[in-house]
């Protein structure tokens, strides 16, 4: 799969739900009869995939929140993986 364009607007895929679970101290992604417990960075990225913000805006927000730079390749790679796993879909 080719890289996600910076202008793409990723959103949690239809039928899936992302939520914070205090008992697991993690974001989890819920889907039919299954669940993925996300690590900190995956949770931080997916919780910004609202179908409104572009990938570029998500990267900027993450870099601001974590006080760092140079995240765009890592974020794009993760969103590509999330697309392959059908965790997210791209909105127009």
């Amino acid at each position, binding site marked *: 799969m080719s890289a996600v364009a910076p202008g793409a607007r990723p959103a949690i895929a*239809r039928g899936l739900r992302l939520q914070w*679970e205090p008992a*697991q101290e993690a974001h989890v992604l*819920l889907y039919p009869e299954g669940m993925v417990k996300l690590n900190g960075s995956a949770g931080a990225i997916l919780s910004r995939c609202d179908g409104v913000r572009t990938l570029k805006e998500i990267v900027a927000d993450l870099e601001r929140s974590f006080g760092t730079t140079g995240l765009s390749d890592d974020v794009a790679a993760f969103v590509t993986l999330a697309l392959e796993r059908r965790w997210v879909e791209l909105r127009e």
Partner: protein
Amino acid sequence: MSVGPPLQTSHAVGPPLWLLLELTYRCPLHCVFCYNPTEFAATGPELATADWLRVLAEARALGAVQLGLSGGEPLVRDDLEPIVAGAHALGYYINLITSGVGMSEQRIRALKGAGLDHIQLSFQDSTRELNDFLSSTRTFELKAQVAELIRSYDYPMVLNVVLHRLNIDHVGEILEMAQRMGAQYVELANTQYYGWAWLNRAQLLPSRAQLQRAEEVTRRFRERVGSKMQVYFVVPDYFETRPKACMNGLGSIFLGIAPDGTALPCHAARMLPGLALPNVREHDVRSIWYDSAAFNQFRGEAWMREPCRSCAERSRDFGGCRCQAYLLTGDAANADPVCELSPHHHLVTEAVAAAERAAAPPGAGAPLVFRDHRISIAVERSACRSGQS
């Protein structure tokens, strides 16, 4: 064996992430492979709405998040909608596991409004004849209509078909049917031999050749259709040489509640002798999960015998299935005889060999026993008799 609640269990044991409420044993279908207990007619009255809502709140407080609503047929309960609404308000992801019988446009609209996340619809076969025969009902067209409703209400479509000797040769047609219906997920779940399926095992176990053909057809279908449809093929464990990691170990993530409020560490645990299963009418979910003897008995590895106790794979498969160990060997603490390291493995290979010999036309040999209230009472009586002898 007496296993008291170990001290500080709650620190080592994780939450019951997967909660299954079997809302009722009532079901309009009479499937020959149903895993419900054959003695279901002898169980107590169903929990009331308020009890289910209390169980949902207590389990959610412990961290339960995936919720299955099944039965029996959960649509038989006319309080399904308020139960779904209560669960949704608590933050559960809610899966309805249904035959589709009892679904209507009005109900699916109400369920969607109440926050139901997903519907898993079962089919018994791709043909009307076999679907209706295996469930002892006329439901094929009705299920097809429900599939259409599920799609039109924008639910991801998950079809579940239980496979066995009588329908496994139809896997190609079943997959075509699923594709026509627009399914995104299909579970081809080979029968697990508990409950009614155990009664009918000699009739339902496929031959190895049937199984290999079905796997090949599934592989080719996956190649052709690609990622548009995800097909899960659950291999029947009788044909394996290592056991399934049943329930990820008892008392690890799964909590089931039977219609009468009995708390179950696995779907079939009612059959295990000497396991005093607690009831949510008498105990709160926290004490059931963390402190009850029943939920601690098969937690961890202390209960294991050889060959499991010293096996390098014990933390991967947890010794397999306790119910299968009990059904086949008479002792739930033995290794699951599906494992070729088990001294009882021959019991599995003999059953498979018998199935090979019996790969005869359907209808030959012993009659199939359809899940039925009247028969359930008869089974219970005969179980009582054999228990006394």
